[in-house]
């Protein structure tokens, strides 16, 4: 146990006041933001009387027989949740959606956030007994770089120009251009720390709280405690069992009948059954996942700004939340930054369904017989067809005719997405606002589905990425959101909540806006109450 963790436990137990705790933690070199989250974490822990031991049984959707233990291949809940049990990253995404130290205990930007120095935590052991050091960190990051990497994090890691060891406990990461959000990029669940040269993915070796006990992909994965964990307040369970239950009703039933202790992706339509139960509860977090209807700004008739405006007022956003997520969602404002993001522009006026305004702009556009065809399929996401039909109905009331074209599910993302002029799809949220804006709205981004092309926007984005000053960054990001809300062809009616459910005896399973099951960290954060 290091000094900081010791203090944390002392504070949780009430032997150290908050003021003393903060003072001593800062003296130890932790940053003010990090200490703040430490305080909250320690206090939340004390409030729930953490217990050691027990087996947590999870019922999770988002697993398949084709899953493997190689972090490069992960893309869905089950393996993400398993991954955070086995491994640690350099940086963690805190409950407040901010980067906080994990295996890197400190990080500092240089040259306009172009170079980053990461100081690594000392004394953390891999499961095989080797101590974690700079060579491991360099190797682990490089797994996701280069033209031939198969990593799901290859995209965000493309910005990395070089990773260099400075000494045994320090590495230097150089970026192609400045990015003040780089620590947030490192919270990605692919970027796990493994021993230098490690390749035997069937028998993973990490620094996490658990090791693999049984791996039966798509059916059941069991982890057991690896021994003493370097985070004193986490990894309290003896074992974690991941039952893959992709059928929503089966998952709900398993929780209600007590065969599992917690589930992800609770069914919004029937989740009220859980809310009513005396032993169960919902874990709900506003999230960054959102459905999209993207008009390509450079293709007729969508080149017409007034038509795009008309469409913005033709979306009944409230009704979308009800139809798509049974009310478990938050309003969208045609820009991809959700309320849960620290850089959410709270002063933008919320777009509302207004048939009169829609009619007005549609008339102004002067395209009375414009052919508006929305291509959709439930392959985009479950409910994408409903979304299109609802837009058709609400736009119809404003005198705008929208044709809904149902496309074949197979190959939807190959043949329709990025190709059609008006297409339904979705995005999972990104931990950093600049990351989301970069991936889908930068004029040269390959996934720029609305062909949004604005030199002013691109410049704001580059400036925001390179800006270390919080206030300035915020103003840049706010401006970009305003531009998208006012003019972009992307209709973002709403954001989906993460909806987990659990037995009340499970503690430490807190809502997180990043992803379901406490942003994947359920294994190390949860405990069973006596």
């Amino acid at each position: 146990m290091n000094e900081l963790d010791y203090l944390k436990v002392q504070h949780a137990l009430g032997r150290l006041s908050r003021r003393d705790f903060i003072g001593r933690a800062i003296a130890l070199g932790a940053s003010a933001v990090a200490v703040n989250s430490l305080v909250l974490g320690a206090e939340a822990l004390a409030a729930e009387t953490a217990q050691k031991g027990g087996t947590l049984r999870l019922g999770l959707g988002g697993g398949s027989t084709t899953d493997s233990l190689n972090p490069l291949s992960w893309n869905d809940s089950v393996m993400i949740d398993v991954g955070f049990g086995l491994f640690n990253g350099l940086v963690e995404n805190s409950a407040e959606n901010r980067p906080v130290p994990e295996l890197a205990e400190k990080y500092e930007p240089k040259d306009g956030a172009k170079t980053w120095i990461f100081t690594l935590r000392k004394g953390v052991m891999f499961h095989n007994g080797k101590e974690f050091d700079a060579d491991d960190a360099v190797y682990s990051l490089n797994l996701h770089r280069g033209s031939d990497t198969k990593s799901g994090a290859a995209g965000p890691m493309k910005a990395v120009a070089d990773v260099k060891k400075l000494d045994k406990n320090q590495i230097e990461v150089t970026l192609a251009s400045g990015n003040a959000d780089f620590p947030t990029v490192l919270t990605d669940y692919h970027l796990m720390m493994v021993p230098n040269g490690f390749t035997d993915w069937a028998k993973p070796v990490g620094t996490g709280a658990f090791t693999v006990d049984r791996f039966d992909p798509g059916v059941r994965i069991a982890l057991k405690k690896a021994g003493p964990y370097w985070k004193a307040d986490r990894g309290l369970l003896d074992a974690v069992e991941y039952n893959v239950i992709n059928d929503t009703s089966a998952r709900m039933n398993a929780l209600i009948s007590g065969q599992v202790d917690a589930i992800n992706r609770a069914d919004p339509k029937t989740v009220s059954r859980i809310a009513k139960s005396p032993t169960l509860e919902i874990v709900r977090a506003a999230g960054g996942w959102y459905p999209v209807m993207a008009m390509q700004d450079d293709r007729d008739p969508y080149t017409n700004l007034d038509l795009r405006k008309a469409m913005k007022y033709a979306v009944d956003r409230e009704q979308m939340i009800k139809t798509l997520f049974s009310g478990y969602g938050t309003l969208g404002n045609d820009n991809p930054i959700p309320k849960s993001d620290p850089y959410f522009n709270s002063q933008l006026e919320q777009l509302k369904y207004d048939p009169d305004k829609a009619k007005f702009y549609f008339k102004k556009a002067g395209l009375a017989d414009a052919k508006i065809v929305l291509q959709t399929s439930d392959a985009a996401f479950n409910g994408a067809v409903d979304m299109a039909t609802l837009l058709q109905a609400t736009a119809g009331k404003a005198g705008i005719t929208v044709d809904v074209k149902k496309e074949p599910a197979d190959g939807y993302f190959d043949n329709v997405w990025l190709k059609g002029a008006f297409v339904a799809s979705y995005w999972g949220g990104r931990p950093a606002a600049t990351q989301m804006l970069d991936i889908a709205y930068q004029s040269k981004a390959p996934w720029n589905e609305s062909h949004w092309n604005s030199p002013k926007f691109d410049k704001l984005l580059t400036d925001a990425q390179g800006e270390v000053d919080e206030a300035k960054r915020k103003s840049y990001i706010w401006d970009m959101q305003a531009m998208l809300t006012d003019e972009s062809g992307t209709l973002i009616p709403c954001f989906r909540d993460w909806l987990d459910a659990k037995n009340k005896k499970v503690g430490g399973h807190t809502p997180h806006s990043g992803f379901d099951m406490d942003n994947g960290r359920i294994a190390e954060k949860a405990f069973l109450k006596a």
Partner: protein
Amino acid sequence: MIKLIAQRLALGLMTLFAASVLIFAGTEILPGDLASAILQTNATPESLAAMRKELGLDRPPTTRYVEWLSGAAHGNFGVSLANKRDVAEEIAPRLQNTIFLALYAALIAVPLAVALGLLAAVNQGGFYDRLVNVVTLMTVSVPEYFVAYILIKYLAVQLGWFPSLANVTPDTPLLERMNLTFLPMLTLVLVITGHMMRMTRASVLSVMASPYIEMALLKGLPKWRIVVQHAFPNALAPIINVIALDLAYLIVGVVIVEAVFVYPGLGQLMVDAVSKHDVPVVQACGLIFAVIYILLNMTADILAIMSNPRLRHPR
């Protein structure tokens, strides 16, 4: 007799060959080339060509078909594209689970259905006959997931008698395995008993209309003896056929039941493989299903022949 059986076997082999051609051709014409399915967004023309070469997709389909079939005949189904595991190894425990559930359901459903059917035939037109008819018609008519959810709602959630998750592992002991798979078994029993029971009743009754039964009646034999001893053996052929069809369904058609109860069977594996374009697994599953279907039908044919003295002793 032996000649007849040999004929059936030869026919079965030919059907299997035809099925293998269909399976291979079917996976060939799936939209989306295999290499692009693997590479997804990383696909550049060069990497696609390299991947096609690595997978051997650049060679003519007939060559690949012959290689695949001869491999399969030796039990070598290749390697899964998604996780690089040996397909045969991946399928074996799943196939065992599927067969276990099918046998479990069949051992209960077949005797039950035949007994119920015979009783109904004995009591033709009576209260019991009508009751069984209505009840089985109901269980046959509702879709299996509906039956499954109703069973879960009452037996698992409200009463808590049986688990709703049938997540067995290879080392689950037999008794626990039977408990875990009780609800899926019951669902399947409810779904198939109706077919078999009604077929038993109908074919026994049709035999009951023949002259030799009238003779037996006039002789004063009791009704149960006429049904069991005289009518039933002569009604066996259609009953065996419907049983074979239901057994085949139990093995190849229970994907929905597997999904509802989270049972790690072959159907679930195949669905996963199809959605990930994992062609070797899809082909292997398809071939195994074909073998089982053909084998069961052939067995039914042979048993039907054996149950018929005229066919057993051809002049």
